[in-house]
């Protein structure tokens, strides 16, 4: 057909030799490229995979497509201005990031926030834990072909998102909370609506549970795939559900309780196999625990202020700003220069839906962070994904990648 000689090294040669078209299944290693934009990668991550037949010989995740210079931006904004950036770390559980960051800053200041604010933070964090886990479970089901469970999961998630919207004013980018507490209290009648939502979410979760957990099609792809041993998981720095699925009982909420986690009753589910199925079950169980925590919070939460009454930390009420020199000074200084966080350093960890969300903060005594290190739980977990799938089938990659729940925003900062 063509006179030009065939270049065997060029895979894009438009004129392949006849025998190549009817070649047998290759057993030579083949390199394929998954992502950066691929339905199964959630965020934008590129996986360079070397395949031998259907076996993955080597996987090399390439990240950074969603890198936004999080740390550099934060170092150049005031402590309060950092808050919107934290929304965009794990954008499925923004409240956990908001509160985690604020808790770290407050720890550095040495600030005790009002009790009601602590309870609401627990409530918000658990609400977004439900939100995150529902998204994860729904996505697992979707990518393994179970569209119904995905829709149930998403319906429940949207109900939660509605309540979050009512609470914070935004569906995902919440920016809720301030240094020293919260920027606003719960809206009127919100708790009643929340209880109704939780009832409905529980119903839908049970539905998802029923559809998936004992489903042979689902379980066969999940059981025994993406296994990692406890030892290796710890070595890689796995935390959260991924670590607990391997049998290591580590949950920051229990190990080093913060806010009012020590005043609510809940269990930390632990599974033993460390495979995809256990990671999935972890999330289903945690959904139930979060539901339990929120119901307790609603019962136990006291009335009171939600923001500290200290004008060095929290903005004064508007009548004071407009009507008194003290108020206008405090407002001006807090907005223009930021909260003056004493010089020092702190590492503080909270439990986000995917694991330990750690903040290493360094202050030089000014209104802006000098250094803001975020230990996103997804980062070490993604680094362990090659270990979990190398030598396994290509089809195992999909559920594995789903159950580790990699979120581009936090991994790539």
């Amino acid at each position, binding site marked *: 057909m063509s006179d030009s000689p065939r270049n065997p090294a060029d895979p894009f040669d438009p004129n392949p030799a006849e025998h190549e078209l009817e070649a047998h299944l290759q057993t030579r290693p083949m390199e394929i490229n998954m992502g950066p934009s691929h339905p199964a990668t959630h965020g934008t991550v590129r996986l360079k995979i070397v395949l031998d037949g259907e076996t993955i010989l080597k996987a090399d995740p390439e990240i950074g497509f969603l890198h936004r210079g999080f740390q550099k931006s934060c*170092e*150049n*904004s*005031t402590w309060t*201005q950092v808050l919107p950036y934290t929304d965009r770390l794990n954008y499925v559980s923004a409240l956990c990031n908001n509160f985690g960051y604020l808790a770290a800053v407050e720890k550095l200041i040495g600030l005790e926030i009002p009790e009601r604010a602590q309870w609401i933070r627990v409530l918000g964090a658990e609400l977004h834990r439900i939100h995150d886990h529902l998204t994860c479970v729904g996505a697992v089901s979707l990518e393994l072909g179970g569209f119904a469970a995905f829709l149930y999961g998403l319906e429940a998630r949207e109900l939660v998102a509605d309540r979050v919207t009512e609470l914070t004013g935004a569906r995902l980018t919440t920016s809720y909370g301030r240094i020293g507490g919260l920027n606003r209290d719960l809206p009127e009648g919100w708790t009643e609506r929340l209880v109704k939502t939780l009832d409905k979410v529980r119903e839908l979760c049970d539905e998802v549970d029923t559809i998936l957990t004992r489903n042979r099609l689902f379980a066969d792809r999940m059981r025994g795939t993406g296994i990692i041993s406890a030892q290796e998981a710890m070595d890689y720095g796995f935390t959260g559900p991924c670590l607990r699925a391997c049998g290591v009982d580590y949950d920051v909420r229990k190990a080093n309780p913060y806010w009012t986690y020590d005043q609510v009753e809940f269990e930390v589910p632990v599974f033993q196999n460390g495979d995809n199925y256990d990671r999935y079950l972890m999330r289903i169980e945690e959904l139930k625990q979060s539901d339990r925590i929120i119901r307790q919070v609603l019962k136990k939460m006291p009335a009171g202020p939600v923001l500290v009454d*200290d*004008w*060095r930390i929290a903005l*004064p009420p508007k009548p*004071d700003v*407009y*009507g*008194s*020199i*003290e*108020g*206008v*000074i*405090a407002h*001006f*200084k807090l907005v*223009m*220069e930021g909260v*003056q966080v004493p010089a020092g350093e702190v590492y503080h960890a909270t439990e986000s839906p995917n694991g330990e969300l750690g903040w290493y903060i360094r202050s*030089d005594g*000014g*209104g*802006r962070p000098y250094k803001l290190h975020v230990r996103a739980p997804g980062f070490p977990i993604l680094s362990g994904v090659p270990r979990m799938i190398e030598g396994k089938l290509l089809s195992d990659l999909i559920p594995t990648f789903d159950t580790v729940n990699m979120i581009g925003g936090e991994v790539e900062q």
Partner: protein
Amino acid sequence: MSNDEKKAAAPTPPPAAPSKPQPKNPGFVTFTVDGKEVVAKPGTNMMEAVKQVGVEVPYYCYHPRLSVAANCRMCMVEVSNSPKLVPACQTPISEGLAVKTTTEKVAAQQKAVMEFLLLEHPVDCSICDQAGECKLQDYYMRYDFQPSRLTGEKVMKNKRKELGPEVVLDQERCVMCTRCVRFMKEVANEPQLGVFGRGKHEVIDTFPGQKLDSNYSVNTVDVCPVGALTYKDFRFRARSWFLSAAPSVCTGCSRGCNTWADFFGQDTYRYRPRENEAVNQSWMCNEGRLTYKALNEARVEKNTTGRGPEALVVTAQEAATAVAEKLKGASGVAVLASAALSNESLLAGLAFAKDALKAKAVYVGGRPSGKGDAFLMREDKNPNRKGLEAIARAYGLELKPFEELEKALDGNKVKALFAVGTEVPTDEAAFAKKAAKLELFVAVAQNASAVTAEATHLLGAVSHVEDEGTFTQGDGITQRFRRAYPARGDAQPVWKWISGLRAALGLEGSYGSSREAWKAHAASVPEFKEFNWDKMAPIAQRKPGTGINPLPTGSDGRPAGFREFNARPENAAAVVKGESR
């Protein structure tokens, strides 16, 4: 009095040493502040002594260069030899004294003083020039931070009291520290201000029939710790927290007062004096302050070739090529050098005159002389005459007075003129008429004038705040200034023009920065041997200081007015780099 002293001494435990303790460090006084040991010369102000060990005592009325008034009561500290709090600015230091600045008693005092000061203070921050560099704001956040407890009305005073041609007083904002009164009396030696009235109706005002018309009156605005005294020229023109400050030097006269050039985008908004004991202490004159206007107005921002209606706007590259072509064939090109240019510009410019134009002599340009006084202002209005002289001497160039150039022009002896700086000491219009006859008039000029209008080749030069460099002031002190923002328009630093011309003429030597221009030539100038260009650079303000320092950058960390920069990206990046260090 003696009774009081006995009472005071009674509760303190009897000292182990005899009544007069042996000094720990002979010749010095040793005492402790917050447990830290301080060694200071006898007679040192306690406020200054404790600064040595990093202890900060808040104050309004104290000023290191003014007499002590001790009327603001903000600096009260606890000392071991008095049962009551004492003002740190007024209390003499003594051997073995234990000063405490962080006790509850002190904190309560500071809180109370702040509350009293703010009691009658108007809610003005949003319209106040001082907002962002106000001590009331700083100290409120540090020592008071509580809501107002005032229930009644505030006292109303005059909010627009014109004290003089430059200064407007807002009597409501005043905290009665009397720094301005003391400044006028002690430093300016023109006691025009006084305190009138009593109690909360006390106000600052000029003496009857007088005006605050001293040439140093605006320093009262600088020493004012709050926004009571405002400078008419700066009033309501910029929000001070948006301004960045670059350490610079005033070019108004040969005193070379050290300044902060406060800028936003590519405009300078004001000069503030920067402390330098050897030159200007902490002050500068009103006349010098206004010289910042030349940095913004009537600038040569485009390069042209051709005169009058034939003038053609060209790029820097084209302009340099055109000039080089003309200079290649020309002989007997006279050189005019301005004493208002920086050393780097002159080093490069005169070296070019010597190498390329084979000049033996240089006509001295520069601004005409004016009034001087016994304090800061000099008669010579050129910041760098000493530098020009030193450089010409080192290069072996004869310096000829400007009048000789005029005579030569009258006698048609000069056909071509290469002017590095176009400031002239005589009447501009008259000289322009003479310059119109020149066949070739290459003018490297910062500001447009009648003279630059007659140039056949007009090359825009940057002002000193747009470049790094040095001036040698009248006493022979060489001082560095720092760049504030990138060059406006198509203007270039003189060394850059020279570098381009040298390249176009095929001459050796080019410079990539004013530093390189200095390094290339300064070694041959004996006056500059001792001067370490890099080490003498004043440190750019990096962080918001306390008191009256503006934020170094915009609140988001970018140079102030970054979005307004119309500079090329590479310039912008360079500015960011310069800022961040």
